[in-house]
């Protein structure tokens, strides 16, 4: 390891309602691989976005190569040698690998683009990195893993001095990861400073020199990898005092019937052989890190996305558990399942419409009298739920876009309550909602469970999972890795199962 190339000191950044970065310190040396770890929402990505100019910091300083710097956009950062390899690929599918790598800076030979040169340079690049990709191949023909390798090659070709890898191994195979590590080691030899954002404990141990842990937007500490254990790191990641008491034991009676049974659900890489049961009146927490496959499982179960195989059984109104075919959300809704999406604004509500229109969207048959919509009834029901859920809105006609996040969520909940769905899937129910509204949603969920509704709660917030769940399912990379009763659950063992381990 050489001298320090980058120092981020006291970085502070807030968004409306969220204090994303709270006086964070981060330092990178030449010739080191420095891991940046933390749970979802810890602030890792935000910190890097501030560094590379996607966001502007509120306060603090960034010193790069001895000079106080601030990048205003990614182009500036790129030109200075600070490059980020994003999780979300930015590739043009219809162009070839070589064309993508050199996009925007194509070498020319007279009038024509020198494709030959681009291919040669790419070949050289791939050779140096020991990757086997044909630069003449069209990007959309490559696997996601290979595309990521190209993204990495592209970043390196910018003569970077600091490279940030954001969850690079998420889409790679074992072999590709091994190749990636060879590349990273090579870059380290060459004196680059490498930031490695990942939650994979085993990889951290193998490839990194130091580890910085963030938690809830704050800086927790930096460890030297070879001197620390997995437990040390996990403790730093989750070691918070939970003020609200976690649930001590399950509220579900031992003889409560199974209302939903999922067996061997398969839907692509993100949902592999997932099986679980949901019991009446239970709140089943789904824990795991980003990309674990929880939302994908819910969507496949709900019929929103196609699945390859899987048996789903739902308890009917008569109390019998029977197998059902769910190929579309229409089917799922018919069987009494409701789904509250992760991205409320995009998939949960029709924001340009009113509370009334949103609340009755899943139950329009109930509100039609002959040909016409029974507006009075619609309004009545909507107002009933506004009262019941304490939704803060001046009138029932108010457009949902004008409500705060928490209240928008309540409108979505009202929609499914109107439908009288017995099984509710909440995907990140309190994301982006302030503390006060959060508590209201929790109270609501508990009330629903007590009334006999069954809830699947997908959440990345440890506190929330421990507070609300009767039982916790943990997923990691598309597979179910844990199924724990709340009485045995701790932050540590949840996190343990949520992070991949090489056996």
């Amino acid at each position, binding site marked *: 390891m050489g001298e320090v190339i980058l120092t981020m000191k006291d970085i502070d950044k807030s968004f409306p309602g969220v204090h994303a970065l709270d006086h964070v310190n981060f330092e990178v040396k030449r010739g080191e691989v420095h891991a940046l770890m933390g749970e979802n929402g810890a602030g890792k990505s935000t910190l890097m976005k501030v560094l590379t100019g996607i966001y502007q910091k509120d306060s603090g300083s960034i010193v790069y190569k001895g000079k106080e710097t601030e990048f205003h956009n990614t182009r500036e950062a790129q030109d200075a040698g600070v490059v980020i390899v994003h999780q979300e690929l930015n*590739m043009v*599918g*219809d*162009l070839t690998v070589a064309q993508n790598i050199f996009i925007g800076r194509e070498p020319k030979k007279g009038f024509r683009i020198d494709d030959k040169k681009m291919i040669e340079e790419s070949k050289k690049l791939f050779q140096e990195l020991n990757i086997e990709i044909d630069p003449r191949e069209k990007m959309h023909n490559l696997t996601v893993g290979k595309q990521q390798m190209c993204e990495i090659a592209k970043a390196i070709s910018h003569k970077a001095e600091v490279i940030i890898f954001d969850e690079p191994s998420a889409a790679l195979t074992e072999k590709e990861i091994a190749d990636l590590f060879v590349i990273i080691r090579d870059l380290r030899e060459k004196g680059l400073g490498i930031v490695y954002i990942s939650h994979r404990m085993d990889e951290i141990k193998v490839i990194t020199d130091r580890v910085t842990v963030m938690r809830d937007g704050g800086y927790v500490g930096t460890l030297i990898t070879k001197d620390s254990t997995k437990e040390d790191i996990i403790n730093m990641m989750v070691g918070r005092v939970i003020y609200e008491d976690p649930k001590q034991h399950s509220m579900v009676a031992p003889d409560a019937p199974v209302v939903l049974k999922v067996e061997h659900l398969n839907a692509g890489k993100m949902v592999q052989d997932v099986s679980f049961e949901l019991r009446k009146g239970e709140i089943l927490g789904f824990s795991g890190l980003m990309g674990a496959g929880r939302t994908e499982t819910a969507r496949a179960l709900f019929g929103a996305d196609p699945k390859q195989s899987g048996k789903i059984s739902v308890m009917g109104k008569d109390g019998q558990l029977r197998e059902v075919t769910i190929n579309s959300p229409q089917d799922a809704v018919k069987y009494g399942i409701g789904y509250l999406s992760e991205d409320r604004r995009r998939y949960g509500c029709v924001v340009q419409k009113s509370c009334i229109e949103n609340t009755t969207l899943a139950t329009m048959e109930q509100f039609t009298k002959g040909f016409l919509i029974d507006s009075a009834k619609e309004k009545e029901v909507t107002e009933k739920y506004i009262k019941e859920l304490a939704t803060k809105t001046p009138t029932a006609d108010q457009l949902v876009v004008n409500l705060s996040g928490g209240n928008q969520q309540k409108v979505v909940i009202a929609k499914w309550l109107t439908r009288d769905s017995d099984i509710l899937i909440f995907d990140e129910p309190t994301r982006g909602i302030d503390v006060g509204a959060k508590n209201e949603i929790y109270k609501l969920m508990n009330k629903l469970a007590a009334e006999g509704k069954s809830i699947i709660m997908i959440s990345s917030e440890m506190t929330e999972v421990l507070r609300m769940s009767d039982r916790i399912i943990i997923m990691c990379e598309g597979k179910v890795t844990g199924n724990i009763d709340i009485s045995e659950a701790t932050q540590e063992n949840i996190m343990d199962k949520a992070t991949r381990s090489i056996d």
Partner: protein
Amino acid sequence: MTKKKKSILSDQRFIVLLVVIALTAIFSFMSKEFRQYNTMLSLLDFSYYDLLMAIGVTFPLITGGVDLSIGTGMVCYALIGGTLIRSHGIPVIVAMLVCVLLGVLIGTLNGVLIGVMNLPPFLATLCTCMITRGAGSLCTATPWPGLTQEGGWFHSIFKLTIGTGRSADRYPIGFLWMVILVLLMEFVLNHTKFGRYTIAIGSNKEAAALSGINVKFYHVMVYVVCGLFTGLAAIAYAAVTPTVQPGTGAGLEMDAIGGVFVGGVAATGGYGSVLGTFVGIFVIMLLKTGLPYIGLQANWQQIITGLVLIVAVLIDIIKEKKAAAL
């Protein structure tokens, strides 16, 4: 999200070429008149303006947009050109230049409306279609000079006539220019920044913008190029239309656009080929001119062009769906 479409591009163009050969063979076999040299000549004559429009509109289609003003635009420029020659005594060469310039002008207008003001392409060009049609209607029907008249030399660009009268030999050298232009534009598409960025815009506009490409500029240029070729098409149209009628033109763009889709352009953009357009146009042309020879009323051609467009697009959509499912 990237499109996982398998690139069987060469296959589609080759298949379309086979279709062209097959259609030619079928029509020749079924109709004696079709087999005549003069018929072939006439077919080629009438293909030039469609082909030029099609080459031009290939680019907007690759970006996932469209230019519906090419038909009326072409007629409008031909009318204005003709009026300049007849009423103002402007030399033919200048009128030809005016056509191209007008094309570039309207193309720029389209480009700005779509690339800078972000209007939906079909609507913006539907409006410029109306505007050019209206402008064209203001002119009176004016023929460009005939072959034997002064200024009529421009016909020779498309068809070389040696000798006079009935027994003259006519050679469709226009076809040669077309081939050259097609090869040129295919080169531009595949080997220049302009072509490369056209594809990038159609494939993933955000990624292109994030890679530092001046997306606005190239998006506008796509329509300027289309306009330029519409201008050229106007000249070709004038060469085969004895008297250009004001108010016509709507519907001519269908053949051109249909040809591009048959040639394999992706329904939502990101992929296209000028060579594909070339063979695609010939399918359309063959159907258009050949069907009457085997007894099908000329008007069926419109129905068939419409159906061909839908089938071509459906094939593309189904291919993509299949590939995405892999």
